[in-house]
């Protein structure tokens, strides 16, 4: 595929959380991973929207499990980051690294009283 889509910040966060959680990645664990690491109480709705988008882009694969008795007989959506997803993460990291290279703290001071 010639066209490469870059990842948004939230998408990166979600993908990384899935990688962190590993085999047990589904809605609850991913959300809690993000919350544990960033302190953000991410909305479940936004999370699932991100899952859908990432899956559509081919960075994520999901599989709805059989109903498990632990959660009142509800199914889970198990998540896996695809190879394309890993590549996309690397690309994003790369891009940002290159941009950050040589950036000193002094240059990051706001020019005139900050922005809006």
């Amino acid at each position, binding site marked *: 595929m010639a066209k490469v889509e870059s990842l948004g910040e939230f998408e990166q966060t979600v993908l990384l959380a899935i990688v962190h959680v590993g085999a047990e990645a*589904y*809605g*609850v664990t991913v*959300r*809690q991973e993000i919350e544990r690491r960033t302190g953000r*109480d991410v*909305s*479940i*709705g*936004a999370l*699932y*929207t991100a899952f*859908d988008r990432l899956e559509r882009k081919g960075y994520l694969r999901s599989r*709805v499990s059989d*109903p498990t008795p*632990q*959660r*009142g007989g*509800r*199914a*889970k*959506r198990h998540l896996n980051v695809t190879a394309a997803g890993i590549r996309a993460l690397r690309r994003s990291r790369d891009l940002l690294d290159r941009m950050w290279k040589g950036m000193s703290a002094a240059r990051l001071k706001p020019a005139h009283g900050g922005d809006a």
Partner: protein
Amino acid sequence: MSRAPIVARWILARSLHPGERDVVLGDFDEEYLQRSIASGALAARRWYRHQVVVSLVPNLRRRLARPRPAPARRDGGFVDGLTQDISYAWRMIRRRPVVSFVALVSLTTGVLLPSVVFSLLNAAVLRPLPVTDPNALAVVLEVRSTGLNHNFPFPDFVDYRAGQRGFVDMMAVSRGQVSVRRGDGVQVLPAEFVSGSYFDVLGVRMRQGRGLAERDDSAAAAAVAVVSEALWQQLTGGIESTETPPSIEINKHRFDVVGVVAAPFRGTEVGGDSQVWLPIAAQFQLDADSAPLRTSRTASWLTLMGRLKPGSSFEDAREDLNRIEIALAAPVGRPRRSLTVVSGRQGDSMLPGTVRTPLVLLLGAALLVLLVACANVANLLIGRATERARELAVRSALGAGCGRLARLALIEAVLLASAGAGVALAAAPALVRQVVPFLGRYGEPVALDPGVDWRVLSFVTALAVIVTLLAGLAPALASLRGPSLRMLGENNRAVSGGHGVTRLRSGLVVVQFAFALSLVVVSVLLTRTVYNLQTQPTGLDIDHVALLAVEPDAAQYDQTRTANYLATAIARLQAVPGVRAAGYSRVAPLAFGGSRMTVLVPGYSAAADEDMELDFNRVTPGYADAIGLQLVSGRWITAHDTAASQPVTVINETMARRYWKDAAVGRRIRFGNDDPDVEIVGVVRDVKYRMLRDAGLPSFYLPLAQMPAPSGIIVVRTAGSPRPALGELRSALSSVDPAVPIGMVRTLREQASINLSDERLAMLIATVLGGAALVLAAFGLYASMSHVVGQRVREIGIRVALGATHNGIRRLVLGEATVLAFCGTAGGVVLAMVFGRLIETRLYGVTPTDWPTLVASAAGLGAIALFASDVPARRAARIDPINALREE
């Protein structure tokens, strides 16, 4: 373990797409459980609610973005599907802008016409006076053998008011005009002279200041007036200052303005437009001649109204007033009146009674046009639905219920109907304002508020609902019947929606044509009525006569001076070049009104209920020549018939035939038992007296010299058209004596035209409605045939490939259209006869079942039908078989 918040959970479930509902709800439940163990039920519930709220928008977005669910299900709920259907219907409307636009225009026109008529009906007939509790208002009337009398003398009002117990209070009002000074000019405005109780009895809302009170209505009181908001704004330029009420000059007297009435109050007459309110006492001062009215018990000039006491009825008030009248009549020496009390919720108004029937008929016609428009839209929507049949079939196969598909069609109709109703509500007031002046009769102005109130709002809403049902139901039914699995395998174009749908569409075209034809027939009947009335013989020289109204009594002339003035005026007018003859009469022809007198015919025994009160006119000798009267036998009135000579009369043919079998000359009549005999000296041809519709009524002429009239009409016959001479005639007349006011100046033809204003309006409206229905029906047929051709491209292609000629194909399509138009026309003829019966009383010289009218209208409609379907027919004939078959 506590349960998750029920409401939040329910909302969450609705916001989720069914395909992921299970998974996401599971996540919520799992984390909720963990949290309620870790930090307590309260915190867990708070978290849950918060999560539901912040997830709502993303969930709904996801939901709309996902395709319709594959699994068949029933738990989607009504609301879920509805939002989706609305957005889907909206997409469909936008995807076919031309069809949607035509549908919208049809519906808007269809809804707008009845909305305008209803707004008029509402303003003129339904809406009460804008005062406190109008339903408790009552008008006092006197029952006479000839009808109801609306006016009473001033002293009687005072006595009734003092003695009555059925009303909270009574008030009296008389309508007139006043001249209000504005800057350098003077403006003549309608005004009401009112008793001091008027404002309290009515409960008029004031914009500023106060209404007139009891203390204002006396000879000794300061001169005060109340004005309307409109006049107030004109006078002050909209500046509000109440410290020192400015005064206005009325009829050259100064009046302090003590209050401003809040709009839209315009006095006690619906259709009237009072701008100034003055105490009755002020009238006696403004007009010295009216002073005797204060004490006269024979001059009736006041309208009496009262406000019922709570718990008391019109019947109670009636009995109470008659009790006073019985006690009053004998002492003041007059026969006892029979009083009655009727509802005063619309004040004392003529307009509601005169316009009710025409407006209701008009509303019916406008609703017919709406039906035609609905049929049009239904047809368009069916067309669209069948084009979508394949898609619908897929949906249906995937589990969308039939009801769901029908609902989709209905929603489209709802969107269109709402848009139509919205436009109608927005545009109706402006249109109503344009139409209101046409309600005026006898050339008098009418003022009505076209505003949209709850009645108009409900009416238009009801229309929108009906439109939705009518326009949406047929396509909805078509959806129920149309899509089926067998369509899945078929080529898109081959899908015609089945025989049922085709029959439905054809049925709609037939209904449209039937309604359109009936309206066209009605408009032709009314047009012929106007034509017949205009061209019938009137007995008058209608194209060569000018009418000039003069009022010698306004110059306070006595009989001698009036006679001298008229003699000079007639001589002066006869000297104007081009004038053939001039005369004078009390009554103008074709001016709606006239003089009547009871006639005693010796030797003729009238039936018990026979009306012996006959029309008559007082004329000078020159009148017959001036107006074109034709003598049948005997002689006409001459200068020798004077006050001193034998009283004579000339009668018309109908009168001669009815009472004397034509041998009338030399016979005598009397007007009262003690009056002298009047000798019949001549018989003249009948003429139209009050109305062009008048048919053969007896009437007679008296010499003006033997029964003088204080004011009347000078009639002038000219050689050519009198129109260009009007100015010269007028100046010649005013040169005789500038003190005598000249009233209306117009030609007899113009007077006849005014006489027909009702008929002409009916004709105009019927023509507009008929034309609208016709255009809509023609378009419906066009759309229907285009659709049929579009659906049958392959079939036509095969026919052409097998050797069918272009003309053959064209005939095929035209043939189908002809069958539809023919069925519609047949139904229309039947409908037209039904509607013709409804308007039979308005027709003249033509019957509702007039065959030439029916045949000509049907032929005209047929021609339009052929024209409308020829375009798609030609398109069909041009179909290229190769392309048509390749599209497979």
